[in-house]
């Protein structure tokens, strides 16, 4: 940091959406040649801030300065022209085109009559690729490259302008360890050219390895900047979470029963490895981890949708092989899937028919489905779960998210399962219905169901679980009891860091 003019400075950025103050006076400075981490929980405002910077959102208040010159960003193209370039988590490349065409897409060099100047295109591209030290050339088809190399193409695209600031958004999400090393070299090269780098990631390990400073957002507010060399994971986590969450912790108010489900050393290809846990009747077992940590895949394996490659599943102490969802249902395992509309419900079907679908074979009088039996089931669970709908004839697609989720839960409760797995119980559900669903899950446990809750929301997991399994990259990192768990130990566990007593993956 020899140059004392900031590469990029945001001052007092405010952005509100109806009902939400997404950014509340955020200030943030990136020096040239610095790698600056931006951290915060989901919903802390990181994405909103980056969208303001990239010209996708207009800030309500505040000012952006590039090299201390005020700048107004109205579009991503303008942001790029001003030297602010984004490397997104999802790549946006045309697979069928060459590396060169992708890098200069929309601005291909021209000769007379609008013909493409291929010679100049390839020469310019190879010049950029040379600085990145990559193993492919300008004419390579992008679809033939690995994900890591495609990311290099994105970076090369960023270098066609002379960037002042490059923003990496979760760049290592789909990279192998070896590929990460290459990426970090490129970042350090950008750094030595005097480019300011903003690095967004949840992975503490990377943050501490490559960044110079760490800025933290929480609830849309700037919470401070730390020098990476002078801080530690605990301090950063503390800043991210802030006050102790005032959500009441779950306190066991009832007796636990026998072990209903035990999983021993279960593996499934590359999706998860050597996973072991138990769930008792009357207990809620929480699964917490980042998206892609393998939690949903475990649920799908227990529900007979995937074949495990190794390990055992035991129901009431007896080893079982679950071959299909029908088989799982017969054995008393139910799954409320994460994608409510895509996997949980038939939106064009009415409420009653959705709820009774798995047991329609048993709802017959003679060869025909008995209307009376179906309506009785629906009425019972509508009252029990407080489902608000004008009547059973209402199409499920017309209900609110919370009521739709209750239909899915009712569908399985009416089957009297032994083990109920709920994947992301409150995704896309408003705050009021959220706490209703949380209470419902607690109630089910107290009625003696063995419940597994998979969630990406920490407050939710802390609130409903008796025990919590923390997963990272397909492995169980640590198991916590409700008494011993803390937010920062949980964050550390799911970031792949070893906390006290953790297993090294």
């Amino acid at each position, binding site marked *: 940091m020899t140059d004392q003019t900031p590469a990029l400075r945001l001052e007092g950025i405010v952005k509100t959406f109806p009902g939400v103050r997404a950014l509340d006076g955020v200030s943030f400075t990136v020096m040239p040649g610095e790698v600056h981490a931006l951290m915060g929980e989901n919903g802390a405002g990181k994405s909103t801030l980056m969208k303001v910077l990239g010209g996708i959102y207009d800030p309500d208040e505040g000012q952006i300065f590039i090299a201390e010159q005020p700048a107004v960003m109205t579009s991503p193209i303008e942001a790029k022209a001003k030297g602010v370039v984004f490397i997104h988590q999802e790549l946006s490349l045309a697979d069928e085109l060459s590396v060169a065409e992708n890098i200069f897409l929309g601005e291909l060099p021209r000769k007379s009559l609008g013909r493409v100047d291929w010679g100049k295109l390839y020469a310019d591209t190879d010049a950029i690729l040379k600085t990145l030290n990559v193993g492919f050339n300008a004419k390579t088809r992008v679809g033939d490259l690995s994900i890591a190399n495609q990311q290099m193409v994105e970076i090369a695209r960023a270098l066609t302008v002379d960037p002042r600031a490059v923003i990496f958004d979760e760049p290592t999400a789909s990279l192998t360890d070896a590929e990460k090393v290459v990426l970090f070299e490129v970042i350090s090269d950008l750094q030595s050219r005097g480019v300011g780098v903003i690095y967004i990631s949840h992975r503490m390990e990377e943050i501490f390895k490559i960044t110079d400073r760490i800025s933290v957002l929480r609830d849309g507010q700037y919470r401070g900047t730390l020098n990476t060399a002078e801080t530690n994971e605990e301090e950063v986590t503390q800043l991210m979470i802030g006050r102790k969450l005032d959500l009441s912790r779950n306190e066991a108010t009832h007796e636990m029963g026998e072990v209903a489900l035990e999983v021993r050393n279960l593996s499934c290809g590359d999706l998860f490895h050597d996973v072991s846990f138990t769930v008792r009747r009357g207990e809620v077992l929480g699964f917490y981890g980042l998206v892609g940590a393998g939690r949903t895949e475990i649920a799908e394996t227990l529900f007979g949708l995937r074949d495990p490659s190794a390990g055992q599943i035991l129901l009431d102490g007896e080893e079982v092989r679950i071959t299909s969802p029908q088989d799982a249902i017969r054995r008393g395992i139910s799954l409320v899937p994460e994608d409510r509309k*895509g*996997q949980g*419900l038939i939106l064009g079907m009415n409420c009653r*028919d959705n709820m009774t679908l798995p047991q329609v074979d048993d709802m017959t009088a003679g060869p*025909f489905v008995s209307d009376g039996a179906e309506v009785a089931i629906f009425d019972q669970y509508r009252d029990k779960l407080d489902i608000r709908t004008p009547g059973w004839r209402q199409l499920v697609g017309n209900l609110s998210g919370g009521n739709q989720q209750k239909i899915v839960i009712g569908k399985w409760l009416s089957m009297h399962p032994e083990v109920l797995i709920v994947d992301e119980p409150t995704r896309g559900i408003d705050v009021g219905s959220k706490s209703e669903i949380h209470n419902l899950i607690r109630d089910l446990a107290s009625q003696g169901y063995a419940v597994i809750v998979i969630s990406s929301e920490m407050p939710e997991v802390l609130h409903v679980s008796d025990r919590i399994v923390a997963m990272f990259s397909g492995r169980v990192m640590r198991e916590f009891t409700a008494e011993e768990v803390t937010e920062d130990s949980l964050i550390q566990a799911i970031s792949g860091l070893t906390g006290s007593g953790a297993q090294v993956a």
Partner: protein
Amino acid sequence: MAELTKKGIGGFIARHGILVAFVLFMVGFALANPRFIAIENISGVIRSSAIIGVMALGVTFVVIGGNLDLSVGSMMSFSTIVVLDLHDKLGPTLAIPAMFAMTLALGAFIGFLVGYLKLNSLIVTLGMLSAIHGLTLTYSGGKNMDIDDKQGTWFSIFGQGNVAGIPVPILMFALLAVVLTLLLSKTPFGRKVYAVGGNGTAATFSGIPRARVVFMTYMISAFCVATAGLIQASRSLGSQNTVGQGLELEVLAAVILGGASLLGGSGTVFKTVIGVLILGFIQNGLLLMGLAFYAQYVVTWVIIILAVWLDIAAKRGRLWSPIA
């Protein structure tokens, strides 16, 4: 691009366009030629619609289950030729169950490919349309098939007989419609067909054996095709190899006219029967008005495209939309 409100005339046409068009056609035809509404004409239309109608009943199951069946015309030729051939070799009593078994075997093959191997039903049944045609020609050696003793067989009852003054093809169509209505709307199997067509993934997540359900819809379709082949063979007691050619499109037209969504998950047997009758009466009316037979191919397709357009318009509540 005005929004169609529930009370607007446009909205009414969008929602009931097919019935409105049908009524207008009927009134127009009746005014143009009073013979159109004579009992004999109406009975004649229904009887000649029976073959397409019977096949449409089966295809309704396939379409509600979220798939297509374009092989029914060619499969019907197969059934007709086979039963005529076996009639003289085995006698009618054995020929009929043998033909049903062979047709069901074809249905099982398609059901396996689409249901269990999850191949695209359009490709599979389009391929089978051609493959079964080749099978029929191979079986018959390319020759027309005729029953030797046309006077002395009871086999003609299915196509030419009357019971209580009602033609047997109409009775078979009606009986099958009633049975399949009950199957689709009242049984657990019927519920599963709607579930699989409405959202196959959610059906799987509810423990519905999706592959088996799709397989069964093709078996039902094949059973209906065999029945249609029986009526066809019995009516003419002799047949060309190409007797069912092109019927798959009329069958599909009737199903769509009835309002089953090509996306799956909606439609009923009753609506399909209405679709069959609409198609039959419009074609008959145009014929009575002196429209050349060949022009009917054009008119049929205009009607189908209109039906599909109105179907989409009804769903999005407007006749035209810039997106999707």
